[in-house]
């Protein structure tokens, strides 16, 4: 296990809401529950042809954390993202996401796990062209089992949350890059996932838009969201409370930074 600077008392089990996608009170500091959202133990991933992308990775992410997984291209960070996001399975080692052991789950159950517990934000947004921002966000709730009306309502709320309340009916081509990424973030958080995975979220954006997207991620984290940002950008990594450096399939450092400019709000 990675050494953790913060004391992690045994987590009291938080009450499981009956509706997996129901909004719950996120404005709770992580230290109180310190429930592990991601637990990787000795995870290796070997691709056909003998390429070892991950060589024994141990990583724990607690509820409410905001961390960067940082490394140069080819370091295995994308593979790590796929495994943490349950899009891929490890060759060896144990992966538990939101308390579910991934190895024990069928493909169907993994899909359900993703729909309830994991939200993705991609570098290239992956918005559906030709439909409105609200419809794009609602599409993210489709596999949650919510009614159509409820999906529309939550999509509107999520867009308000990311500051796009006045862009609901805009189509992706009518939005700027930063706005598109905000729509994608709204889609990822609309289902209130336990973990938000952002893969180079600022990679396709100019500096100003990138900064505002990072600002939004900070705000969401302040509201209680657990966010992992995958990036090769050292500057971004340094701006987050925790950064996990990965190189050649191994974690080479796991640091906590002081956040002078961003004191954590008291609940």
């Amino acid at each position, binding site marked *: 296990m990675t050494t953790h600077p913060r004391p992690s008392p045994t987590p009291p089990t938080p009450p*499981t809401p009956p509706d*997996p996608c129901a909004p719950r009170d996120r404005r709770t500091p992580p230290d109180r529950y310190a429930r592990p959202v991601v637990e990787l133990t000795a995870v290796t991933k070997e691709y056909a042809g003998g390429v070892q992308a991950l060589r024994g990775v141990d990583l724990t992410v607690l509820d409410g954390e905001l961390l960067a997984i940082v490394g140069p291209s080819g370091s295995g960070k*994308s593979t790590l*993202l*796929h495994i943490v*996001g349950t*899009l*891929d399975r490890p060759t060896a080692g144990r992966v*538990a996401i*939101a*308390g*579910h*052991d991934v190895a024990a*789950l069928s*493909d*169907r*159950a*993994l*899909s*359900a*796990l*993703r*729909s*309830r517990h*994991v939200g*993705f934000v*991609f*570098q*290239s947004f*992956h918005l*559906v*062209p*030709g*439909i409105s921002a609200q419809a794009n966000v609602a*599409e*993210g709730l*489709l*596999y*949650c*089992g919510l009614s*159509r009306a409820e999906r529309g309502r939550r999509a509107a709320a999520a867009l308000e949350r990311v500051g796009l309340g006045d862009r609901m009916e805009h189509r992706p081509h009518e939005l700027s890059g930063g706005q598109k990424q905000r729509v994608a973030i709204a*889609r990822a958080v609309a289902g209130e996932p336990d973990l938000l995975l952002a*893969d*180079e979220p600022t*990679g396709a954006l100019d500096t100003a838009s990138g900064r505002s997207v990072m600002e939004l991620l900070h705000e969401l984290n302040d509201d209680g969201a657990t966010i992992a940002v995958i990036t090769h950008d050292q500057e971004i990594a340094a701006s987050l409370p925790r950064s996990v450096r990965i190189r050649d399939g191994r974690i080479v450092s796991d640091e906590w930074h002081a956040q002078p400019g961003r004191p954590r709000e008291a609940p």
Partner: protein
Amino acid sequence: MSTTRLRPPRLGPRDVLHVGSAGLRSRPMRVFLSALGIAIGIATMIAVVGVSSSSQAKLLQELDKLGTNMLVVTPGQSMFAGQDTKLPKEAPGMISRIEGVRSVGTTGDVPEAVRRSERIPKEETGGIALKAAKDDLLGVLRARMRTGTWLNDATSRYPSVVLGHVTAERLGITGVGAQVFIGGRYFTVIGILDPVPLAPEIERSALIGWQAAEQLFAFDGHPTAVYERSADDRVAQVRALIARTANPQSPTTVSVTDPSAALQAKAATEGAFSTLLLGLGGIALLVGGVGVANTMIISVLERRHEIGLRRSLGATRGQIRIQFVTESLLLSGLGGLAGIALGAAATGVYARIGDLPWVVPWWAVTGGFASTLAIGTLAGLYPAVRASRLSPTLALQAT
């Protein structure tokens, strides 16, 4: 550790339709073109079936009007070759007394030539037969006068003649009052018949009164055809009795025919639509199906990112499969509906031009639509399975 079971929720029918039509809505031109192939196939098949059904319906309508309860008694073949057989003079009267017989009409052949004038050589008969008519011949045949009147008690004693429509055409006579030259004297045309589908021999005859034939020509008075109509439910019984009644001495030399049988056979042939055209429609449908499959495969290739995205949002393999099968079904279903409309419209135009009833059988419509759905499923299955097997990590690869 959480113990909640992870079961993906089912997509409702509306949601399935929503994801299945998403790809179509963004590419209307492609939808139009790939649905067109299916539409052409279905339209061809519907039109082929519709046109032949309409023609058949027309014939059956006609048959209904003419009735299927008529029998014709004619002298048949003798057992001894070359020997003429004749019906007894009493045959019409005997037949009319069979239980169930409603009306009887009789003709007798008169061996005289019918010519336009005396200047026409005797040999040029034009294939026109002279017949003597008596009883209710017009009523039994349900024949109508095109112009003029039928023979009555008065006119059948005198040199008056009623022409079948073919006869009138061959002689070049269009109205009453004209004279025709029959057996050395002129007869006055008092009427021309409309076509008589049940008795084509009448259409090619000139009909004169029974008495006139006996008085003016050497007519022996033996009937050569007795037309009889009975109640619909008595036809079989009448048929069993009629030969013996008409000629009790030698019932085997009497021939009994049902002229409506020939029309029925014709209707059946009309109904048997052209297999060749139907086959062409089938091939067009098949090609349309291949087009849909092709479109679907391209669609899956193009939408790798969307598939990956949906998987990352929590779509199961089954939900990806149903999305693409639905898309394929919608594509071919749209084509099928358009094809049915086109085929029905083509049948309608044909029926209007040919003055036929507009008939598009339900079995053809439902069968055609069902086959497009089957083709849609088949064409969509392989691309859908391919889509569902794509690795979800593909979505994360930058474009």
